[in-house]
């Protein structure tokens, strides 16, 4: 008997609410500000047989959209082959191995088997970004790591909770290998409590509709998500759509890395072929398979936000040609840059390839870097060591409807930036300015959004500055005739000299003395459409508001301004025709 579409919709909403409630429970109880404030976590329900994604929380971090099903699948395979111990009720496995369906080591996954009677019905799993998992530098983002061991403690899937009880031996091993271990027990409790919440809510759903009905609905929803995605794919013209995105360098070897992508629609399937992308790199800008797949999925979800997150939606998407490239790195390649940087640039390649094919939906490239600046040192006033992170947004791409947003969060994130006042209260720094990166939005009919321009001064004690950013060489790509956004810039003023990192956007451990200044300007978004088609009054308004100079109005947009600041129509016409 097939299910009626209404019961299907109702169960779909019910499964979604189970996941949303897990997300909420996790964030509210977490200690790590990365989880509690930045929502760097995700919760979902996965199939018992192969880990296929059934539903995932709507407010989960986008980059985890596809990694957790891979992680669950690998766990199931290891259990089936006897490498990992078989599950029992109330067990929770912990795993952070990047090569087993992960991102970087800091993203720690928990998986809990969910039983109905004796039968394993599905898996509940979540990922949370821990502030530290050991390794060479606090926080785990080492720009100069050349192997994963330098990045932190790597855990294969092991049972952290056995029948509901925390395994003290495993826990002590973890605590002896990570920094600020005393607070992590709070995150572990939060992460496991979220799964418990999910189990309780799933019980209610199954009790109400019956196990068989829900099981049938899950299968049907999987098929229908695939149908829905196929229907959207038919909007893309058949044939090949190619683009490349470039990463400045891997942080160790100063040479650009290419993400070469050809998207081809054939019938109702879409193939993403990465053949020809760069080989695995020495530094930490490698991606692992799960992250690469997830990056494609999240880019597609940005393009088609209507399709609910489920394995069915990914089914018509084929991802090929990553073997042997830095998008499918294997042990022991370092990978700390995969979740924050490489993933965004994969999404950029997808946007750039599809913008001409789906001009109403796809935006020009957004800033595409997480703008990771870390400052570590000793504050003599509090006599304590500190590590400060400043992750920054950038401009979004212009699009068919609007100019790009200014200072938006990364493609793969959804978190808020910390206020300057909070940063200054915690760390011995003084921000000199925190402003729009003027002129950074890529010119276009709809221009890119503006990046951020900030400078901060070290007030006391010695410190070291590290940068893991990107788009220092070239700005985010413009689309449909729009220009690229401005690139990322890092300047470090030490005494009387200005230092620019060799790798432009990456360097580790630059020593700073009190009075030294770090100045960062993040990328603007790519422009959309011909800049000469931008209404002159919109350009005049941008100049009036100090976003572009009069010169830029003339050179980028072909708009001449009169003495009173309004557009000079006659001269503008001349400029635009000439």
């Amino acid at each position, binding site marked *: 008997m097939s299910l009626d579409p209404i019961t299907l919709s109702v169960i779909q909403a019910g499964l979604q609410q189970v996941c949303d409630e897990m997300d909420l429970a996790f964030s509210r109880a977490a200690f790590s500000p990365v989880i509690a404030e930045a929502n760097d976590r995700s919760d979902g329900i996965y199939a018992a047989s192969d880990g296929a994604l059934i539903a995932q929380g709507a407010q989960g971090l986008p980059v985890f959209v596809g990694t957790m099903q891979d992680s669950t699948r690998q766990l199931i395979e290891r259990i089936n082959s006897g490498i990992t111990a078989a599950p029992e009720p109330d067990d929770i496995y912990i795993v952070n191995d990047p090569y087993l369906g992960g991102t970087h080591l800091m993203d720690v996954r928990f998986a809990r088997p969910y039983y109905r009677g004796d039968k394993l019905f599905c898996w509940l799993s979540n990922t949370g970004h821990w502030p530290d998992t050991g390794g060479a530098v606090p926080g785990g983002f080492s720009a100069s790591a050349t192997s994963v061991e330098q990045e932190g403690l790597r855990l294969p899937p092991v049972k952290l909770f056995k029948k509901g009880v925390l395994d003290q031996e495993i826990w002590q091993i973890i605590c002896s290998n990570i920094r600020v271990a005393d*607070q992590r027990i709070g995150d572990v409790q939060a992460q496991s409590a979220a799964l418990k919440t999910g189990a309780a809510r799933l019980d209610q759903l199954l009790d109400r509709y019956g196990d068989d009905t829900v099981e049938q609905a899950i299968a049907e929803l999987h098929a229908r998500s695939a149908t829905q995605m196929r229907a959207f794919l038919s909007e893309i013209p058949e044939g090949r759509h190619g683009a490349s995105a470039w990463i400045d360098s891997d942080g160790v070897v100063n040479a650009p890395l290419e993400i070469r992508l050809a998207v081809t629609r054939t019938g109702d399937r879409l193939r993403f072929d990465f053949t020809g992308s760069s080989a695995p790199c020495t530094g930490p800008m490698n991606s692992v398979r799960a992250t690469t797949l997830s990056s494609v999925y999240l880019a597609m979800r*940005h393009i088609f936000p209507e399709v609910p997150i489920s394995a069915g939606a990914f089914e018509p998407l084929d991802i090929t040609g990553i073997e042997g490239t830095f998008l499918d790195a294997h042990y022991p390649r370092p990978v700390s840059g995969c979740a924050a940087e490489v993933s965004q640039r994969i999404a950029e390649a997808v946007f750039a390839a599809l913008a001409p094919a789906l001009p109403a939906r796809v*935006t020009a490239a957004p800033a595409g870097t997480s703008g990771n600046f870390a400052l570590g040192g000793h504050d003599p006033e509090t006599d304590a060591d500190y590590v400060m992170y400043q992750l920054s947004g950038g401009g979004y791409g212009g699009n068919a*409807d609007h100019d790009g947003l200014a200072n938006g969060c990364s493609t793969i994130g959804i978190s808020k*930036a910390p*206020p300057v006042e909070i940063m*200054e209260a915690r760390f011995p720094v003084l921000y000199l300015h925190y402003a729009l990166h003027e002129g950074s939005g890529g010119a276009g009919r709809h221009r890119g959004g503006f990046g951020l321009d900030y400078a901060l001064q070290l007030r006391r004690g010695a410190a070291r500055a590290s940068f893991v950013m990107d788009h220092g060489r070239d700005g985010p790509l413009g689309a449909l005739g729009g220009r690229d956004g401005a690139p990322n810039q890092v300047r470090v003023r030490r005494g009387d000299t200005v230092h620019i990192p060799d790798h432009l956007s990456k360097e580790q451990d630059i020593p700073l003395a009190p009075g030294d200044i770090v100045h960062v300007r993040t990328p603007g978004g790519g422009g959309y459409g011909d800049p000469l088609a931008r209404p002159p009054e919109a350009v005049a308004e941008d100049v009036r508001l*100090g976003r572009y100079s009069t010169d830029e109005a003339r050179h980028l947009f072909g708009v001449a301004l009169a003495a009173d600041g309004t557009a000079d129509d006659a001269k503008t016409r001349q400029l635009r025709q000439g």
Partner: protein
Amino acid sequence: MGRRQVIGVDVGGTFTDLILMDPASGEVRLAKVPSTLDDQSRGVLNAVTEAQASLPETALVVHGTTTTTNAVLERKLARTGILTTAGFRDVLELGRRTRPQAYGMKGDFRPLIPRDLRLDVPERMDAQGRVVTPLDEEALRTAARTLLERGCQAVVVHFLHAYRNPAHELRAGEILKEIWPTPYITLGHALLSEPREYERGVTAAVNASVQPILDRYVQNLAAGLAQGGYAGDLLVMNGNGGMVSATRVAEEAARTVMSGPASGVMAAAFTGRAAGIPDLLTYDMGGTSTDVALIRGAEPAVSNEIEVEYAMPIHVPMVDVRTVGAGGGSIAQVNAAGLLEVGPESAGATPGPICYGRGGTRPTISDANLLMGRLDPARLKSVEGGVTLDQVRAAFADQLGAPLGLSPEEAAEAVIRMANVKMAGAIRMVSVSLGADPRDFALFAFGGAGPLHAAALARELGVPRVLVPARPGITNALGCLVADLRHDFTEAVGQPLDQLDMAALADTLTRQAARGRALIEREEVSVEEIRITHVLEMQFIGQTHLLRVPLDSPDITREALQAKFEQIYWDRFQVRLEKISAAVATASTAVIGRRAAFDPARLLPPENRAATLAEACRGSRPVLFDGQWHDTPLYQRDRLPADAAFNGPAILEQMDTTTLVPPGDRVTQDACGNILIEIGGAA
């Protein structure tokens, strides 16, 4: 004849509602007139006339207004400038690095104050409140004059770390008073003395840019009332559910932004208290959205961190009303996966649902209710455009029935079922995020469509009963009539519990209480009792989310506070964290002046009641429930005998609301005239 009548009046998007009460005679009069959105005060005066209120005999007028809400949401703001610390003029535009939705890299954001009206001035404090750069007074004067030249009416001073040391902001305020021609000067730290420059700046910017608008409005209204002979004080509802005198309301205009929704929740709290049902989830369903709030022990939850729309945080204490994107106008459609979707797209007020006859062609929740017999099809006759039930049926057949393989009526039922599941899910999330299990609450249904869906929602949520107040359509006006005087104070503490000076904490709370008492005593309004509540916001060190810990008195020992916090943490998360120590983030006090009691039984005059249930019944019509048509009796709500008790199915009709009772549920009334629906066999 003395002044004794009390009037509560609420201006909503469509109607202006008024309740007049005469405490001596017990008489209650109601009026409902169209709102006059160009100048809301005209509608208020029309309502006064309609109710035949005698202004010279009126002791008190309390007013709930959407003037500031609309100004903010529609960005119809006074021209306002901002003076910031040098280097930080873009704070209002940069925001907190967010986007409107998790997926989709598009969106539009307009800062409250455009860049050419954001000027900066050399000055700087550090996070400890020490001066890094002295205030450049000349630069400040020059910048202020520039803003005046650019036509600004109001001005904000927003300096970094002013919550820690406001000296520069205070000095800037003195200088501005000399040169600024209007009283509309807002200092950033004055409304919100907490770190986080974006939230504080937006709160201040909202305040300044609605000040002139609110001021003009309340002055017009006060003048209009005075002309009619009113000699009392006009009180305006604040978003925290308390009232403030019209003469001072504009000073802290940002506090009124949630005035309307707050009054509805205050009425719910009042009704629940009178009915002996103090724990409520309020459910106010309108045309485009639904407001939900939580009331525990007859006290509405109050939050300092409301975001009224994307990137628009207003951090002053306001009743915590959450908006869920579903209303009568939510559109139903079949998506590419062949699944039915309801909302988030809405037909709004124009064109509105098909049954409004304003040109709407897409099926909505309201249309589905009509097809199922839940709304009266006879009403279609009075619709301007002339719509027939067949037209509605045809739209359901074509757009939903055909792709789903259902009859139009089955499709309508599916739409309602889906809408209820979605709304129930959203309400559950609101409730859970406030740390409450919805099953421990009663659902308080009001607004145009609330009572129509409430019983089904309650079943979906596992809520055992629904309370429909006597006058669901004028709940906000009732809230004005019964609202308390209320003042809230919050101070940052930011100390680990083991280092906290407990005496200083008690002192802070005691001082807050004294300030509140003094303010209430200054008002002309008489209060029966003053209640004081103290709340600490606490967390384990290392956490960022805060838990509210209510105190019985300002004096509490360190050990008792630790134990109390651990217990609350356990209740919320079922987690004990004994080795991690706690910290106190903020200390707050609410001082509440409770006014003379009002007898809610007066809202439905006993003389109108019929002697028997049969007399209150005006007929019946078929209504669709769970795939079956039931011949459903239609009762006139106002005429129900006081002791009426009966089982569903039933429809209760009154002036502007329809209450639906599904089969299996049981209706009783209480002494206050509230309808209670006991949900039978709740899932």
